[in-house]
């Protein structure tokens, strides 16, 4: 499990990897929140390409980051969820809180 962040101006991308469940959620949350506080992005992109499993603990984590960001007027977007993860996100209606891109980020969003 790890979080790697990359900052491009106002946009921060957090590349998550491993399994996102109750066991790993706390550490992932702390790392993302520390990076949000340090960089104050206007857009946070959570990249799920290397997340191999996610359950409702991950939904809680995404909803929680959405709250943190919206307090600062910032937005959230999600890229590259696997079919299993996308199914859980759909069930939770996460699309109402964040743009979900099944493929990668479109270049113009980053640059």
């Amino acid at each position, binding site marked *: 499990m790890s979080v790697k962040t990359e900052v491009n101006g106002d946009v921060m991308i957090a590349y998550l990897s491993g*399994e996102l*469940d109750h066991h790993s959620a706390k550490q992932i949350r702390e790392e993302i929140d520390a990076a949000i506080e340090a960089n104050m992005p206007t857009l946070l992109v959570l990249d799920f390409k290397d997340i191999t499993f996610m359950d*409702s603990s991950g939904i809680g984590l995404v909803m929680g980051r959405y709250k943190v960001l919206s307090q600062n007027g910032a937005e959230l977007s999600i890229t590259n969820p696997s079919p299993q993860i996308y199914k859980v996100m759909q069930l939770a209606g996460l699309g109402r809180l964040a743009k979900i891109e099944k493929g990668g980020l479109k270049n113009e969003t980053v640059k």
Partner: protein
Amino acid sequence: MKQLNKFTMTLLSRSSNESFSRVAVTAFIAQLDPTLEEINDIKTAVSEAVTNCIVHAYKNEIGKIYISVRILECNVVEIKIRDKGCGIADVEKAMTPLYSSEGGERAGLGFTVMQSFMDSLRVSSREGKGTTVTMKKRISVRLNGNA
């Protein structure tokens, strides 16, 4: 329904067992040649039920989680996940989508996931005694597969 095969295990309610429990259950079910989507549905549902034992049933203690997986006739899998934890006072309320008794960052979607990823879900609980979650799913029979 006739039982064709069975696997049971008992785990301590440590969060480090979440990943193992869902992998162990789906590894046992692999003998039915499920699709990747069926495996993932079961993995996710098991993860929800096991996490609930850890987070809710044994909130301030470490207790035992009892898991049994039965393969029944017609490619049906039955998974029972039981705890002897705090129990649920109002099961119907607990199963309402988005309801969570915990503040923090719980979405309140565990039962909703179990319900929609499995064919059936039954929850029986007694306050102070514990909770049993029983889920069933029929694994599709593939033409060139095992049957």
